């Protein structure tokens, strides 16, 4: 989503989205870019409303071959999202590599990829900024504050990635036009009982705290000194 102020819809179940644009989130955009760079058939999948087709088409514009939309008008918790994805993967797969964004921008559950891996009995490595497929194995790296941890996993495997993994290309127009006619499968999975069940959203207090206005560099430096950083 693009936009500044968080305004809730009247039922406090979702954000007011009038006049807001939606986009694929940066981690996921990098995941799609990486998949296209690695090559082979690339299938892109999401769970979301009918309008999410647009984001799937964007992914197909940069090179994904086909899309799967798990269509729903409701928000799903991470557990049921993962279960629906597992069903879709079983129906459409097998796949050599299943890439996820490390966490979603909105729900930020940090877990869908890991749950899918467990359900499929696959290894999983998360938070990656570098992926190298070497034959039947994949070597990957994760930033850990000034250093990189190196992992390896046999294919097939699940990987979750972070923005910075690559620089996603700007979609070409021929790519966008081709994407219009690439195959898109729409499935409407049933939403199971939610085990992390959203009651309501709240705009936290402390948003809109009153900043102290500083005039001039001398005041700024005085503040820095009082904080012990100057």
């Amino acid at each position, binding site marked *: 989503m693009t*936009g500044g102020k968080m305004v809730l819809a009247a039922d406090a179940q979702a954000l007011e989205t009038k006049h807001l644009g939606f986009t694929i989130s940066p*981690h996921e955009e990098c995941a799609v870019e990486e998949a296209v760079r690695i090559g082979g058939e690339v299938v892109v999948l999401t769970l979301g409303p009918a309008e999410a087709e647009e984001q799937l088409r964007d992914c197909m514009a940069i090179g994904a071959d086909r899309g799967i939309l798990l269509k729903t008008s409701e928000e799903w918790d991470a557990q049921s999202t993962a279960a629906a994805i597992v069903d879709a993967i079983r129906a459409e797969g097998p796949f050599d590599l299943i890439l996820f964004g490390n966490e979603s921008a909105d729900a930020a559950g940090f877990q869908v990829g890991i749950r899918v891996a467990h359900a499929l009995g696959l290894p999983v490595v998360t938070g990656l900024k570098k992926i190298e497929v070497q034959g039947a194995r994949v070597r990957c790296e994760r930033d850990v504050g000034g*250093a990189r941890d190196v992992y*390896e996993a046999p294919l097939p495997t699940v990987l979750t990635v972070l923005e910075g993994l690559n620089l996603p290309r700007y979609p070409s127009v021929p790519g966008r036009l081709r994407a219009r006619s690439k195959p898109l499968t729409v499935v409407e999975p049933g939403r199971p009982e939610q085990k992390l069940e959203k009651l309501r959203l709240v705009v936290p207090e402390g948003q809109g705290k009153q900043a102290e206005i500083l005039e001039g560099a001398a005041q700024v430096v005085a503040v820095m000194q009082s904080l012990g950083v100057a």
Partner: protein
Amino acid sequence: MIVCFVDDDELSAQAVGFARRLGDVRAVTFAGAYQPAAWAKALAAQDADAIVAAGSDRGNELLAHVGAVLDQPFAANAIALDGDTVTRVRWGGSLLEEAWLHGAPKLLTVAPHTQPAAEIGDVETLDAPDDGSPKVLERVEESSGGVSLRDAKVVVSGGRGVGSAEGFEIIEELAGLLGAAVGCSRVVTSAGWRPHADQVGQTGTKISADLYVACGISGATQHIAGAKGAKKILAINTDPEAPIFASADYAVIGDLHEVVPAISAELRKVRG
């Protein structure tokens, strides 16, 4: 009994503080190479009412594995648990969600910098046999010159208002004087003015500085998500309506191209 996974970081102390308010806490950790699936299996085997960790990369990862092993829901980045009702942070902190966390044990991580830290006390080292799942094979140290963004005490950051790659000279100058790391907003990395490694935000680095100086950054929620680990935020922007001011402790309303060099000059003057 609350089982709390701890690492040797400040966030773990915050998680322990949170866990103590829920009940008796057993602080646990592991030895040897990090192997998330195996460690999680060991955690999942503990008899506990709740399993808690910090909302760090590792904490979130481990609890997600535990959730998958136990097939139980996991609430990431919680700030409160009251019976079955969890309050957690979403949209990088700009929204809170209240939800029922069904199932047992309760699995949750604690949103960073939302809870006071506590003394961790005794830590029990659990055994986690290698199950063949991916683990850390080696750690490659990066020989980056400057101060690391994540650990810097001061971060001076520039946004769209800086205007160009060259415009960062004045930001670097101020950062140099403060011994600070240089950061930037997402638009700056997209424009190719700075590498992604410098990006502060929800999808970049989340900082934990004593002071964050945001120059010409309007303050999109995604940016604030990475910046709010800072104890104090000083924002410099020409637009008094810029959302960054709503998250800032100190505000300078003015053109960064004038204000930043003036601060550098003042710092030099004060130091003689």
